[in-house]
């Protein structure tokens, strides 16, 4: 049995929309709305979804960079849901994050050596000399030349900056890293370098990743298991192979069919979804996907389907997907 390194139970994160004279909340943005999943030790679990699906909020809430509205976050048998910032601090050594924007996430006024050393300083690991040595060693690990120690972030390219961000995340030898769109800001040729580095580090340092991305081809390449999010809810969770070979949720099917394929000879049948993602302030009743679903029926407007295991770790939240993966889709008349 694989060991669960992180368990999320019925997690919710709502943001208030304030208005009126007294700035009272007049509505709530349901960024993450009742999601549950496990992440096992040593695996890469990915969350995919379009913008506004709540994947980044999930990542940040898990690390308690945002306070959850409801639900439970259990990190290695410890319930950290209600931990205060100071209680969290020792745990943060084991839980790190890599951000999307390699420009905005590095302090422009610190040289690279200091940026990478800072986590060691915060957690009081070793003396200054040891910290500097560790920073240099980590720079080598991520493929940065140690001579660049005294340079500032603006002197580096996007790909190198992302390496700095990765170095900062791994310098404390964490067990778990949230990688939030780590390659989406990079060019194709640089993207593959960074993806290779992340996979290489996972092997060497036995890391567990929560990988957040919108690019399904990238996600397919790096993940062991994938969760598909839509409007704050999880629609489907499955092993990578299973999800791509046998997507069961209508949203996953449409999402996969929408991906362009770099081969001019493959012409595939597209499911073109009509319309846009609804507003998370006022999501549709019942199943949140029903407004764009080609199979939606009356029941979909009444009841949100639960995310259920339909066999061998494949979870789907759809009224018309039954145990064993049998589907009972019929098109709307």
């Amino acid at each position, binding site marked *: 049995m694989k060991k669960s390194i992180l368990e999320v139970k019925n997690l919710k994160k709502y943001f208030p929309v304030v208005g009126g004279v007294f700035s009272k909340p007049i509505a709530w943005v349901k960024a993450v709305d009742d999601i549950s999943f496990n992440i096992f030790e040593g695996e890469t679990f990915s969350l995919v979804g*379009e*913008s506004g699906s709540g994947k980044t909020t999930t990542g940040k809430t898990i690390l308690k960079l945002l306070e959850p509205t409801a639900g439970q976050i259990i990190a290695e048998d410890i319930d950290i849901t209600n931990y205060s910032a100071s209680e969290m601090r020792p745990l943060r050594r084991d839980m790190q994050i890599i951000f999307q924007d390699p420009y905005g996430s590095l302090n422009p006024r610190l040289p690279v050596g200091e940026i990478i050393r800072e986590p060691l300083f915060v957690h009081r690991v070793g003396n200054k000399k040891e910290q500097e040595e560790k920073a240099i060693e980590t720079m080598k690990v991520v493929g940065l030349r140690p001579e660049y120690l005294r340079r500032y972030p603006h002197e580096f*390219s996007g*790909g*190198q900056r992302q390496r700095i961000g990765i170095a900062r995340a791994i310098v404390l030898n964490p067990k778990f890293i949230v990688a939030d769109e780590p390659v989406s800001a990079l*060019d*194709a*040729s*640089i*993207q*593959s*370098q960074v*993806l*290779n580095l992340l*996979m*290489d580090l996972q092997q060497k340092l036995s890391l567990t990743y929560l990988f957040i991305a*919108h690019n*399904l*081809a*990238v996600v*397919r*390449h*790096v*993940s*062991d298991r994938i969760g598909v999010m839509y409007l704050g809810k999880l629609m489907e969770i499955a092993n*990578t192979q299973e999800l*791509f070979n046998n997507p069961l949720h209508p949203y996953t099917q*449409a*999402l*996969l*069919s*929408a*991906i*362009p*394929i*770099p*081969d*001019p*000879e*493959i012409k595939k049948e*597209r499911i*073109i*979804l*009509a319309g*846009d*993602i609804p507003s998370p302030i006022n999501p549709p009743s019942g199943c949140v996907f029903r407004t764009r679903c080609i199979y939606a029926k009356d029941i979909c407007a009444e009841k949100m389907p639960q995310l259920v295991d339909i066999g061998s770790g494949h979870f789907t939240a759809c009224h018309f997907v039954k145990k064993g993966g049998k589907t009972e889709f019929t098109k709307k008349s």
Partner: protein
Amino acid sequence: MKKELLLEIKDLKTYFYTDTGIVKAVDGINLKLHKSEVLGLVGESGCGKSVASLSILRLVDQPGKNAGGEVIFKGEDLLKKSEEEMRKIRGSEIAMIFQEPMTALNPVYTIGNQVMEAILIHQDVNEEEAKKKTVKMLELVGIPDPEKRFNEYPHEMSGGMRQRAMIAMALSCNPDLLISDEATTALDVTIQAQILELMKDLQKKIEAAILFITHDLALVAEMADTVAVAYMGKIVEYSSVKNIFKDPRHPYTYGLLKSIPSLITKKTKQPLLAIEGMIPSPHNMPKGCYFHPRCPFATDICRKQMPELKEIKPGHLVRCFNPIENAKEVSKK
């Protein structure tokens, strides 16, 4: 069957005269575009693809300047036309769709107003007819309830709807040439699929040629008939879409194709083939072939001399001294 030539770019150069030196953003490119053909121009950031498109319409701002070459559109050189004549061509005969629909649209005018403006300027119609035509255009690009949407402002629409409005504006005067500069990059994948489908559909209807600029090779495979690959202001490979994907000859094209994870690769969690290093600084270009510092096949001559764009088989042009002979054999190594 030879199609009629619509646009021919001959040795076009656009240089930026900056304080720190001349940046050759577009450095002598040659392109041919026939009637109702889709030409994909691909490359990573900084390769000059956007500047090339702006140069065609003569929209490059200071300190950028045309530094030579010809842009023959329907037999006439656009670079020799007066500003007055250019204004008549822009938006009517050549239209453009930009990447970011929010910044490309004017926030203080309604969508209807902005689409109608193009029609009023370029066509001999009165306001009432223009309005009717605008509503028809909005309907054509799949905006629901076009009469109501006519009076909405850009901020009231979603990204996909705004991009549809942009397309409506671009197509309102039946252009012969449509330039699409990363038109779907800012959109989610399901919305991207909608917009691409729309563009393909409309292209067939109005028989316009499209210059399709993107960084995403997969999109080119879907959309283009012919492909030009750009690197540092120069075209490095030019051929039919099938040749580019099945028989790439330039090491850069080959590396780019191999470095993107895609849904058709069999193995996942394997290192991707990465192009080493990064693009050179435009202020400090390498001698010889611009790609040689990153090229695994570089020889002495590559370091000294820039290769010519040569036809190595009918319709397949490559700028390389050591073109790849057989892509399949290389991948085995």
